[in-house]
């Protein structure tokens, strides 16, 4: 009996483990090894740290890196600030029968690919775009302005892309918040801000943290949106990696950058968890 169970476990787990191992662990080990090897003058591959040294010696690399990290944190924070009222509205204000409908409306844009959504924004924002057209028609502008290819537009695009991944965990966690807790706080003399900071946010912390981790990682590793909406001066670190792999054919340098990004995201997530006193276990739940 016990034996059978164990075999069943193996049976179902094997594909998962194989998948994890062959598609994720193995390539990463290969990349890790690659990142420590360079071609010497004689054209042979030798062990070296110079791929990593390169990153610190060339200011453009680590500046891009820091910029990407800071903007990702900013995007995560802004996404949270926008998502919280929306989630609160859907869970606590709207009549229950409209909740499903509104959630569906939120999901709808995510049925089309990110590429299409970003192009949608570009159609709206570009110099000959819809918004410019209307602003000129209304006489607010007399000359079209280029709204694409600056940091603000890029952040807007990144927030839009990751919004759903913040709202869904927030809705889930706020749904479990008993309305009577809010009413009790109100009855005991609290105003809206105290209720928000003392009752709602503490209750929602696991959802906020898990949403933030997902949004942060997605933003940090996003290539499409910064590239299309931020243009050439978006200076997103994924572009540096892309350039190394595709433009310079320097896979060793590219892997080193990739691993630096991995380490960075791990450190930020770890710091975030420490700061909010959450463990990965409660958040994943």
């Amino acid at each position, binding site marked *: 009996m016990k034996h059978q169970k164990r075999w069943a476990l193996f049976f179902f787990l094997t594909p998962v483990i194989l998948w994890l191992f062959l598609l994720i662990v193995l390539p990463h080990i290969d990349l890790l090894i690659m990142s420590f090897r360079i071609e010497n003058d004689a054209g042979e591959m030798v062990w070296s740290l110079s791929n990593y040294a390169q990153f610190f010696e060339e200011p453009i690399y680590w500046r891009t890196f820091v910029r990407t990290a800071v903007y990702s944190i900013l995007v995560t924070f802004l996404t949270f600030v926008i998502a919280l009222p929306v989630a609160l509205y859907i869970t606590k204000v709207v009549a229950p029968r409209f909740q499903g409908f509104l959630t569906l409306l939120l999901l709808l844009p995510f049925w089309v690919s990110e590429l299409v959504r970003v192009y949608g924004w570009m159609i709206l924002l570009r110099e000959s775009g819809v918004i410019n057209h209307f602003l000129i028609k209304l006489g607010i502008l007399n000359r079209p302005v280029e709204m694409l290819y600056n940091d603000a537009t890029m952040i807007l695009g990144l927030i839009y892309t990751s919004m759903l991944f913040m709202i869904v965990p927030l809705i889930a966690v706020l749904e479990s918040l*008993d309305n*009577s*807790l809010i009413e*009790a706080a*109100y*009855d005991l003399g609290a105003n809206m801000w105290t209720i928000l900071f003392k009752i709602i946010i503490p209750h929602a912390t696991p959802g906020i943290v898990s949403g933030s981790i997902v949004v942060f990682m997605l933003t940090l590793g996003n290539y499409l949106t910064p590239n299309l909406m931020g243009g050439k001066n978006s200076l997103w670190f994924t572009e540096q990696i892309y350039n190394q792999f595709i433009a310079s054919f320097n896979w060793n340098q590219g892997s080193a950058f990739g691993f630096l990004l991995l380490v960075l995201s791990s450190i930020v997530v770890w710091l975030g968890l420490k700061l909010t006193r959450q463990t990965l276990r409660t958040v994943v739940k």
Partner: protein
Amino acid sequence: MQIDLSVRNITKKFKDFIAVKSVSFDVKDGQFFSILGPSGCGKTTLLRMIAGLTEPTEGVIEIRGKSMVGIPPNKRPVNLIFQQLALFPMMNVGENIAFGLFRRGEKKTIIKKKVETILERVELSGFENKKIDQLSGGQKQRVAIARCLVLEPAVLLLDEPLGALDLKLREQMKVELKKLQAKVGTTFVYITHDQSEALVMSDFVAVMNNGEFEQIDTPQNLYNNPKTPFVAQFVGDNNTWTGRIRQCDKYIAEIETDEGHLFRTKVEDAFQTGLSVDLFLRPEAMLIQPAPNIANLNRFKVIIKSILFDGANSQLLATRPDSKKELLVALPQNRQYDYIQVNDNIEIGWNEQSGICFPRKQLP
């Protein structure tokens, strides 16, 4: 005595459903006032309007003479203990109790002192740092009460706070709550669907049905002189008959029940012959084997169907030989009636002053 809470013609409509219909009452300073009614009769809605969490459709609420129209819950001198208590799970016991005091911006040292004092009051000294989920049901109860009492509200509103407890604890908390109220002297408005809670604890009880108050009275009067059939039925056990007035003189009527039996009972009004009536009788009004010389009794023979032993609340279940209608008869446990066995044939009598008679409501 000062009137702490005054409610005037309060009405609440949800779309076309009327949850509370023109309710008025006054609660004096330091009183324990209960609102008793079946589930869904609008008790919570009424209490939430007093607390300010629900806007009344019509009517005025005054607390200590001040109109509460347009005053939000966080500015009202009342506090509500919720049906599910609503303790904050993200805070410990001390923080829960201090919550309201911090909102008032009181000094930290004073808050600490007050929290200590109130915890002592509810016999939970030293529980400040416990988590909410480490408490038993009765302890949570007391923390919820302490959290409100520490703010010294003019009126404390309690929404069936004992509902979630098991029977034994409920009995115990009932007495404790009454003692606590006497000790702190705060005005309590307590709602419940449990008549024994209302009768044991209250100075005054309002019986509520379908959003309306049927009667506001002392527990004794409610039990002995119910003013409406609903009150008679809802408060205490009863035997009920339906019948018609055969004749009526000087507030003693002769009633023929639907089973064809004749009873004489006091009535409030001179009722017309032929009027349909409901007759209510407390189980303890029925005397077992009454002495032959007692006058003005309705006497009849019954067969004992079963003996419902329940300590001091023991009762006999009996029927008359010629009918199937079951009657409840109180069985005093003074050993005097130990001889009674199932299937015995005994005589029962009740005084015509004990009957409670109402004209039947014409069904619309």
